[in-house]
């Protein structure tokens, strides 16, 4: 279980002290899929980066399973069970897909094991294991590999920052299936997805709307989703792809 307690985050590039996140408190319970949504620039991705430890909050505490991880590094949080899928997957010259999956799993992952993770994201393992995670891969391929690395982590909490961003519509259809399967298999862990997509909101247990750095609404899918449909927070896949 993840708890955010009164989290604030300010940036002061120009000394103005702009507040990106303002006093956000929320809980991600075990065995649930929480989707954070809201308008662009509202602070969703920042919140995800605060959870992963890439940014440090200027106020508030972050607890994982009751343990205060606010001052822990990215590495320490990863070791405690936080996994993070980047909105823009990072490319590496020379590091192969199999290498990345092995690093993610933290053990000597067999080829068969690596194949399983790739299959789960709809990639044919034989075509990808030996490929470098570099610019030769398409945006959709990179995104799926990014998700596969999070699966390989087997984490307590997996955070996905806009998994739909930058991929084509065809890949998106498959991606929904990936998350549906993840949702089915969720055991003793939780999923947090930042997304605008109605189809991802549709599989959420709980939806949190973040706007202007604050929690605007929060509740079960049944409560929150009807209030979002047709607003900018939820965009149908086809409209986004245009």
């Amino acid at each position, binding site marked *: 279980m993840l708890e955010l307690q009164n989290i604030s985050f300010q940036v002061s590039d120009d000394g103005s002290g702009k507040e990106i996140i303002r006093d956000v408190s929320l809980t991600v319970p075990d065995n649930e899929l929480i989707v954070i949504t809201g308008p662009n620039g509202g602070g969703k991705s920042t919140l995800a980066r605060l959870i992963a430890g890439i940014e440090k909050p200027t106020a508030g505490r972050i607890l994982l399973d009751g343990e205060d991880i606010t001052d822990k590094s*990215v590495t320490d949080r990863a*070791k405690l069970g936080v996994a993070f899928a*980047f909105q823009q997957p990072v490319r590496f010259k020379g590091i192969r897909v199999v290498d990345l999956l092995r690093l993610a799993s933290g053990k000597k992952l067999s080829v068969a094991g690596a194949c399983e993770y790739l299959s789960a994201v709809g990639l044919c393992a034989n075509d990808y294991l030996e490929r470098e995670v570099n610019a030769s891969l398409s945006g959709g391929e990179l995104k799926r590999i990014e998700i596969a690395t999070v699966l390989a982590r087997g984490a307590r909490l997996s955070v996905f920052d806009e998994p739909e961003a930058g991929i084509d519509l065809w890949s998106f259809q498959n991606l929904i299936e990936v998350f549906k399967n993840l949702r089915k298999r969720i055991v003793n862990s939780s999923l947090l997805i930042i997304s605008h997509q109605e189809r991802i909101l549709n599989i959420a247990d709980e939806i949190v709307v973040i706007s202007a750095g604050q929690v605007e609404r929060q509740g079960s899918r049944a409560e929150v989703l009807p209030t979002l449909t047709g607003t900018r927070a939820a965009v149908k896949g086809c409209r986004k792809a245009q």
Partner: protein
Amino acid sequence: MIKLDEIQKRLLREVADLHQVPEGAYNIRSNSAAVGRQSTANIEITPKTDVAGIDIRVRPGTKNESVHIPVVMTQSGLKEVVYNDFYIGEGADVLIVAGCGIDNCGTADSEHDGVHRFFVGKNAKTRYVEKHYGSGSGTGKRILNPGTEVYQDENSVVEMEMVQIKGVDDTVRTTTAELAAGAKLVVRERLMTHGEQNAVSTYVVSLNGDGASADVVSRSVARDKSYQKFDAKIVGNAACSGHTECDSIIMDKGRILAVPGLEANNVDAALVHEAAIGKIAGEQIVKLMTLGLTEAEAEEQIINGFLR
């Protein structure tokens, strides 16, 4: 029977992946003397009479054979220039594994300058692997100055893999190649310098015949206060294609000068160069940290992959 001490064995493992005496033709040179040599029915190795070095002659049509010619130096203060000439017969297909390991525990500089000339016959294919490695706790420098000349006859293919990852204090690498029609040269250079090391690598590849092609790619990492210069020039004298690329990671107070050069003397010469120097991208480190690696471990993985 070849007798090598533990340091010599370790150097052999580093530069030639050799755990024992290799199969096929070989010449093992240790502290300026040949300690083992074997020719085969198709590959003849003979010592030169005028200067230090050997001639390696591969019969035309020889297939799937290999030649190992590693050099190890463990005696501090040794300086040598060695001339090795390779004559690859028409239609042959061979693997040549060279390389030099220096272990210098003394105060005097140790230097090995290997001059390799390749005469590659028509339709022949040669894969050349060269690894350079230095070790030892002495203050004496470990210096390697390889000179490589490649002469490729029509439709021959030469692939060169040159690796210098650790421990060589000073190196000036000079490679020239002349390619006839249809010949192909592929060079993959991987270099890492650290401490106060200096490395200069210069290539001049002349594409003299129609259909000749060259692809010269260097990947390097300069750490600490080391300095590297990569100077690769491709000269297109015919309807040919050439590509040169220098991709470098710079760290600490390292310095890198990349000088990609192209010279087209024929309207149908298609030549491309690319050069990029930069530090490790912060997001690469962060990504690996989100997988549970420390910052130092992440850097190591990124460099290992880059120099793979």
